[in-house]
């Protein structure tokens, strides 16, 4: 289900939980660092579930030892993109794995208007269904202000 009862988009880890506090985010980042993952910060204001590739806020952070550096990057991203979705992404560079191992939302717009169902009439009596976020009716960077 794309629309869910919380009215919030749910993707990645922890998205059915209350928003994580900064201490909880720090603890998750520490966990990832201990596993040797490289963290990065990504943001978007297009909440469509198929929008897989969000924009990167800076480079992935390799060779960090402590969560403080990652949290600083997150704070800067929050300052720059206040009303956007922001997520933390952990990358495991181990040869043969080389993929994302953790991902969770750490910032949301104040209100999330949700998605509308669109019907397209195709050949014969076929109907095609898709969803569209009410937020994306407006141009980028003006969607949640």
């Amino acid at each position: 289900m794309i629309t869910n009862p919380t009215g919030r988009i749910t993707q990645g880890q922890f998205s059915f939980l209350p928003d994580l506090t900064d201490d909880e985010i720090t603890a998750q980042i520490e966990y990832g660092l201990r596993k040797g993952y490289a963290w990065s910060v990504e943001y978007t204001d297009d909440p469509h579930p198929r929008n897989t590739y969000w924009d990167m806020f800076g480079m992935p952070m390799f060779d960090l030892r402590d969560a403080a550096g990652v949290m600083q990057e997150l704070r800067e991203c929050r300052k720059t993109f206040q009303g956007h979705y922001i997520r933390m992404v952990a990358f495991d560079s181990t040869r043969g794995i080389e993929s994302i191992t953790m991902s969770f939302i750490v910032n949301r717009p104040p209100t999330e208007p949700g998605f509308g169902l669109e019907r397209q009439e195709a050949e014969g009596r076929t109907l095609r269904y898709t969803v569209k976020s009410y937020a994306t009716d407006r141009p980028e960077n003006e969607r949640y202000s």
Partner: protein
Amino acid sequence: MSTPRYSIPGSAPSVPPRDPEGPGAAIAQAPDAMERARSVAAVLAESQVEQVLADLDRDLVGLAPVKQRIRDIAALLVIDKLRMNLGLQAETPSMHMSFTGNPGTGKTTVALRMAEILHRLGYVRKGHLVAVTRDDLVGQYIGHTAPKTKEVLKKAMGGVLFIDEAYYLYRPENERDYGQEAIEILLQVMENQRDDLVVILAGYKDRMETFFRSNPGLSSRIAHHLDFPDYSVDELQQIAERMLAQRHYRFGAGAREIFHQYLERRIQQPHFANARSVRNALDRARLRQASRLFAERDRELGRDDLTTLLPADLLASRVFAEGSAGEATP
């Protein structure tokens, strides 16, 4: 979207104020023995810092004033810990330092130990050392410096940032030098993120003094200035013996005295770099020993042959060549 008839945590539009005893608080700090310590002995036992101090004393020759200062700093941190446990002190003291001294006097080596001490006493969370110079912090064009400096700072967080030859950050002859930008970012982090990292600035004494005079903001944020004295010939000799022992070499008959003479001559010459020159001299002696043994193709080489440096291996140095004033090279 219809309003749900059941509620899921976090779904309420008006978020209630966060419970201070909530899960975040629990994660932040589990009470540990260190927090409950009430005596110096308890902190020492809990932190295991004495082991590092003892290693420092044992592994490094000389450097008496530096070792004393480090003990003082450790004492200060222990007492501060006790004060904090009793609620007498909330703020952590500033631990940024400057290490001044000639090349090869052990600044980098001591900085590594310092990081370990600060870590054991809970002053930094991870205790690693990130050693950088101007090139790692300062960019080549406008807008390049800030991300570069921040990148390094992020890597150093939780540990110690060691900036070697820090005075190169400041180039007064070029007023548009990007070094100034790096200094400003550093200043900000040194002031506002004391809990996150400790900065150690290192370099030659006189140039560091000029640097601090032109950057009073930096100098006033540095709590401890440690000066590394040059080593005496006897100390250099001891350092040499240790380096050899570590690599399973030793001085053969008469070689010790020759090396002493070598040091006496070498310290008069330009480009003398204390312990590093000793290391280099020994490396060259090993090279000559290897060539000497290599020449005797058919001889069976025993343990003694392979571990012993003979006077001849040392005497071939240019330092012993008459009238020589240049840098000693093989």
